[in-house]
């Protein structure tokens, strides 16, 4: 099988409201920076382009097509899109390269969530007869998941607050983070509940922004002469959309994806986990069996800023950054989609 490398990754700042900037204006700077990082000039210099976004955020069918304006629509390019987080656009691009249909690909994800009421917008992606019709918001679903864990004694509110505290402190070193600060678990617990049992701190913020990545064969990476990390495994698994039939206190699909991606074949120095709610970081850490020798969410994770449809790709990019900086030899990145960690993707990255 062809070995695939990441050669470039860029993310915008996570901002609570990008104002008048439209999606194209969010994408152009990160795509431009990632071209510069790799030493190429435009989308003509890669063989394939794939993006991830959600038309529901823009509230119009085929809104994602406008994103292509960020690349220049002429001359034609080979281009595709997933109505998912761009981590799945990466997955599609990897398949394209493995099949020999491309040697390099640009992957980008973008989301401008601020104009709408995100938890209600996301309610419309649930079962259309049983849930979407009730307008049950995704924060409430996560709150029920957290209570299941609290009731079973699997976690305490302090455990959740410690996740929030670590996220805010780690984010102090992340210039692109939206929420950061030297905040203790006691500070978090001092807040009253917002959507009980969740406090506002337990919930990721709503953010606008984009991220972009360039991947290629290892041969192409060497030809470009830029530092790279190798993607040694990637897999994704999904659970039923009936939340009542899932064990919401565990993440069996994350564990299955990690096994198939080969996570267990070596030490994990760093793990970036897409946990939009504090208790979900604990579910994921346990499902993956991560111990004290793994640095979890050194970027602050998505509790520090959550770019819908780009944060999954950014988790992979954050691990890439640490490997090329020499801070880690091997790491994993997790991306999620759907309510309460329904669908999960795990990528394993290794130093070249």
């Amino acid at each position: 099988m062809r070995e695939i490398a990441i050669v470039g990754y860029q993310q915008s700042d996570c901002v609570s409201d990008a104002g008048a900037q439209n999606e194209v204006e969010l994408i152009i700077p990160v795509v431009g920076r990632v071209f510069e990082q790799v030493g190429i000039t435009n989308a003509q210099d890669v063989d394939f382009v794939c993006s991830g976004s959600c038309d529901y955020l823009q509230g119009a069918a085929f809104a994602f097509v406008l994103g292509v304006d960020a690349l220049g629509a002429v001359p034609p390019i080979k281009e595709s899109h997933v109505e998912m987080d761009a981590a799945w656009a990466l997955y599609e691009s990897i398949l394209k390269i493995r099949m020999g249909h491309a040697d390099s690909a640009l992957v980008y994800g973008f989301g401008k969530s601020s104009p709408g009421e995100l938890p209600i917008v996301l309610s419309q992606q649930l079962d259309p007869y049983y849930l979407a019709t009730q307008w049950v918001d995704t924060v409430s679903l996560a709150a029920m998941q957290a209570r299941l864990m609290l009731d079973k004694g699997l976690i305490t509110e302090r455990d959740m607050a410690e996740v929030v505290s670590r996220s805010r402190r780690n984010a102090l070193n992340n210039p692109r983070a939206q929420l950061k600060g030297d905040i203790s678990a006691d500070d978090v617990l001092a807040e009253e509940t917002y959507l009980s049992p969740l406090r506002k701190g337990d919930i990721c913020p709503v953010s606008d922004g984009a991220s972009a990545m360039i991947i290629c064969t290892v041969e192409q990476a060497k030809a470009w002469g830029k530092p790279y990390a190798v993607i040694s495994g990637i897999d994704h698994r999904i659970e039923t959309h009936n939340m009542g039939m899932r064990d919401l206190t565990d993440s069996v699909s994350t564990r299955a994806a990690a096994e198939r991606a080969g996570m267990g074949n070596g030490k994990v120095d760093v793990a970036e986990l897409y946990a939009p709610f504090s208790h979900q970081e604990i579910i994921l850490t346990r499902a993956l069996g991560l111990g004290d020798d793994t640095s979890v969410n050194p970027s602050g994770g998505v509790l520090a800023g959550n770019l819908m449809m780009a944060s999954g790709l950014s988790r992979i990019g954050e691990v890439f950054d640490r490997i090329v900086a020499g801070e880690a030899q091997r790491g994993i990145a997790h991306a999620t989609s759907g309510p309460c960690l329904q669908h999960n993707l795990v990528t394993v990255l290794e130093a070249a």
Partner: protein
Amino acid sequence: MSQPEVLHQEFELGFTYTRSTGPVVGRFLTELKQRNIVGIKASDGRVVVPPMEYDPDTAEALSEFVDVGQEGEIVSFAWVKEPREAHPFDKPFAWAMIRLDGADVPMIHCVAAEREDQVSTGARVRARWADETKGFITDIRCFELV
């Protein structure tokens, strides 16, 4: 330089089409219209409410309907202090996972209560029907504490 007036247009976000709900979802919704709740037996015998068309583990098509009770128990809940405009109440309420009597799998619906401390895991609740039933999940107006 003066700011130009921002163009705006009314737009309703929603499903702009109708479709048949089929023999499983349709049966459930039709029963709701008659103020009755049915579940379906999964491959392993568990009673699933609302019914699913296919078993998520075996992919087997499901067809054995079972009447379930209109009362049940709260498995988990979220207390909504600040209801959103789209929510079923304009005052605080709970979303809950409710296991109906005769069912094995909890369903998600709303629970009316005055205060958070009235709601708890394990609490008994009963369906309150809408004044007019139409064959929607919202024919169950809410669940009320027994």
